[in-house]
Structure formats: C-alpha cells, structure tokens
C-alpha cells in the first residue's frame, strides 16, 4: 500500500450539544480518491471544513504528508504551506467566485501569492486549458459564465496552488446532469495527469461510484461503514448504507417503504 497523503484520526467537533463529527478517522493514499457520503446533516461537510482548516476540530488530528494541520495557521509561511497541502472546490459555483473578479484575475492573484516572480501568463493558459476553458473565457466575469464553466474556474483556481489533496464539497451537486458528467470526467483526467488526491464529499452515490476508489459512509457524525467503493456499494454491510442505496429513485421505487425503513433504523 502506498503512503497516505491525508491521514485523519479521531476527529471530533460539537456545536453546542450537537455532535456534528464524532471519532472520524480515514486515510487517503497519494493520488487516491476517497468519497464521504451521507445525507444532509451527517457531518460530512463539517469534516471537509476541518480538513481544509475553515473549522477547528475539538479533538483529533489531520495529517497531510505527515505534517499536522491542527490549530489556526500562524504567519504567512504557515498559511501558504497549508494552502499548498489542501485546496477546496465549493458546492455553489455561483457563490464561490468573487462577482467582481475576472477569471484571469482570480488565477493571477493566486499564482502571484504562491509563485511570485514567475511568468504567470503561460501558467494561466495552461490551467484554463487543463479545465477545458478556452482563453476567451479568461476575461469573463463570473456572471458571464455558465454554472459548469464557473465550477471549472473554481477547479482551476484550486489547482493553481498545486495542492496534494483537493477537497470537493458537493462540487457537482449544483450542476445539471450532462454538465455534471463533463466535470466528473475532467476531474478523473486531472487526477490521472497530476496525481492529486481527491476527498469527495457528496450525497450522490452515482458520483461516488464514478470517481472514487474508496468510500466512507457517515451518519449522525459517525462513520458507519468504510471500504473500497465497489464493495460497499455492491454489498453494503450496514443497514444505513443499504437505505441510502435504496433511496435513489428508479423504476419500481417505493418511497413509503424507504421512509418506514428510515424510521425503523
């Protein structure tokens, strides 16, 4: 087994009396792809926010390449080092870009922060090319782009930092199905080419099957099941995973039975 690029152990986070994340541990091998699935409120987004450092954990540890990212970042060097470890793509591409900043300016700003004193023009073209955006999009403001294009910009911005791990928080949930497929293909390509590791937060089991090697199922802030994606999805051991799988609408689907099963759980 390859060395884990991201190692999370015993993560806990409570909001008041609600235990949003409780004793969550998982690891992501270098260049691997790990999915975290669960319904709304299962703690998967909080886990992601702790991993990127937007939220502080009450207990537990997040290691990237063996380096701890606990506590707030102190100083500029530490901040930049952490940014290069983990980057994030947010759920809503309509809100995750500054409405006043053009595509090129967004990328240039990031590059200037992380790689000062180099020629950014070629790199910007390379990044746009990598996410399948033409140079024509470079001058556009976010509101002139479609949802899929905006999400590509967000991905390019995250990749500009050259992170070891990319956290994708429901990154395709706001896109319509055909665009979703394009972006998922793009993400698969990028992983192949750059060897970046993915932490995929989603509620969509189809997405998990498509882009992840391993999956963690979360419920009420705890991990209920973990393992290789195909195994977990084809032969779920936990009742909750089975419920999630059965909740996906298809022919002969009975919402009443699922609601009853959910109550029984």
């Amino acid at each position, binding site marked *: 087994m390859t060395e884990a690029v991201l190692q999370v152990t015993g993560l806990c986070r409570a909001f008041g009396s609600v235990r949003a994340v409780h004793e969550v541990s998982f690891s992501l091998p270098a260049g691997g792809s790990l999915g975290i699935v669960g319904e709304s409120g299962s703690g998967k987004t909080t886990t992601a926010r702790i991993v*990127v*450092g*937007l939220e502080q954990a009450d207990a537990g540890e997040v290691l990237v390449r063996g380096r701890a990212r606990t506590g707030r970042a102190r100083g*500029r060097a530490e*901040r*930049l080092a*952490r*940014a*290069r470890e*983990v*980057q*994030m793509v*947010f*759920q*809503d591409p*309509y*809100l*995750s*870009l*500054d*409405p*006043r*900043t053009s595509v090129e300016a967004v990328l240039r*700003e*990031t590059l200037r*922060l*992380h790689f000062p004193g180099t020629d950014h023009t070629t790199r910007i073209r390379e990044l746009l090319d990598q996410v399948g955006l033409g140079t024509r999009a470079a001058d556009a403001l976010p*509101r002139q782009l479609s949802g899929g294009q905006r999400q590509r910009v*967000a991905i390019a*911005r995250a990749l500009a*930092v050259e992170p070891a791990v990319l956290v994708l928080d429901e990154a395709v949930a706001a896109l319509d199905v055909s665009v979703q497929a394009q972006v998922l293909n793009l993400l698969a390509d990028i992983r192949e080419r750059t060897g970046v590791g993915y932490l995929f937060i989603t509620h969509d089991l189809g997405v998990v099957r498509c882009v992840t090697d391993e999956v963690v199922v979360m419920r009420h802030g705890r991990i209920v099941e973990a393992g290789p994606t195909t195994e977990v999805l084809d032969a779920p051991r936990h009742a909750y995973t089975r419920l999630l799988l059965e909740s996906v609408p298809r022919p002969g689907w009975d919402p009443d039975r699922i609601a009853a099963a959910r109550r029984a759980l």
Partner: protein
Amino acid sequence: MSAVLTRRPGLGRLRSARAPLHLACLGFVALVVLAALLAPWAAPDDPNAVDLGNALAGPSPDHLLGVDAAGRDTLSRLLLGARTSLLGPLGVVAFSTVAGVLVGLVAGWRGGWLDSVLSRSTELVFAFPGMLLAILIVSVYGEGLLAPVLALAIAYLPYVSRLTRSLVLAERERPYVSAYRVQGHSAAQICLRHVLPNIAPVVLAQSTINFGYALMDLAGLSFLGLGVPALTPDWGRMVFDGQTAIQHGYPLSAVLPCVLIVLTVVAFNVVGERWADRVARRTP
C-alpha cells in the same frame, strides 16, 4: 442585500423610482457642483462689494437676482456660497466615510469583544444629537469651517459604520471569502481587495444621502452664526442675513438660498437612493 440606508423621516417618502425625477435631480446636482467649481469666473460681481445706496433693490439687468440689505449681489453670493456650502458637507462625508468604513470593517470582520466595543461606542455617538455636538465644539473652538465639519463628521460616522458592519457581516459569510481563505490569502488582503469593493457601492450611496443631510445641518449651523465666518458667502449665512430683508418686504435674498438648500438636499437624497436601488438589483 438586506442592508437599509438611513434616511430622515420626511425624505424617506421620496420615491426615486420615477426616472424623470432621478434625471432632474442628477442634473441639478451636476449644475450645483459646476456652479461651485466655476463660481469665481461665473460670478458677475464681487460677492462682498457693499453698495448701501442700492440696498434691497429688486432684480435688474445689473443684478439679475437683486441685492441684499447691504447691497451685495445675490447671484454672486449664491454662486460663491455654493463653494462653502458644498465643501463643508464634502469634508463631513469624506471623513465620516473613511473612518466609518474602517470602524465597521474591523467590527464586522473581527467580531467578538472588539465588535462590542466599537459598536457600543458608536451607538453612544448616535445617542448624542449631531447638531448639539457641533454647537458644543464650535463654542469651544470658535468660528471657522473646520470645527463644525469635524463635529458633524463624528456625528455621521455611526450611520456609515453601522451600515458597513452589517454589509461586512453578510459578505464574510459568502463562500468566495472562504475560498480565498483556503487559498492562503491574509484577512487584510481579502478585506481590501474583495470585501471592500463589493460593499463600496452601498456605502457610497449612503454617503451621498449623508451629503444632503450634512449640507442641511451645516446651513443650519451657519444660520445660527456658528459655522463660517461672517463675510464668507454661504447659503445658511445668507438666509440669516436675509431676515431683515424679509421684514422689509424684499424676501428674494433670503428665499433663494433656502430654495437652493432644499433642492440640493432632495437631489442628493434621490440620487443616493436610486444608486442604492440599482446596486441592490445588480447583485445576484
């Protein structure tokens, strides 16, 4: 955007939705500003040239808008008065905007105890009537434009800081701010490069409205004889000087500055409100 601009009761009822009113107001603002800029060249007479023999004369080809009780040309005094009358509010607005944005930004962004301290202390200024504060400071420091301008700037600061704080609170929760944080940008950088430009239009709209109110307050102060020195042409001062003329049945030299003050205040109000409306509609 949920932030609401502060307007005074009577003026709050002015609807800026009708386009002709807005255009007329915008035109009037431009005209007043132009008049103030070009006053020394546009004024037909020396505004302080006293001609007692001709006192209280009505409009004539020599003096288009008549003369006041001391025989000074009203048109020239109105034109040059526009300078003082606009310069004062400009100082008030510039200072209160810069300081207010700073206070609001720090309070909204940092939160916690610093927010409490800043918010409570600006509310303390709120509780104190601006005019009274101005009168107090003028009575301590004496005549001159600087003292009342500073006093009113402090009085207007809370309007700006409170608005900025609420805007910053809303803005910092938006995912793009989180995105910049994850990218490793410092808080100061995110504030100055992204948060501030995004909230600036609304804050500037409030400042435009404040401009009108500051003009009214400063005119009130100089009417009381507390603002500008006696000989400086100023609209509020002209109303004060014109009182005797009204008693003699020649109201022109006092009524005209009154009308100008009212029209300018209303025009700035409508323009500011309209600006805020357009900004609110543009944001996604």
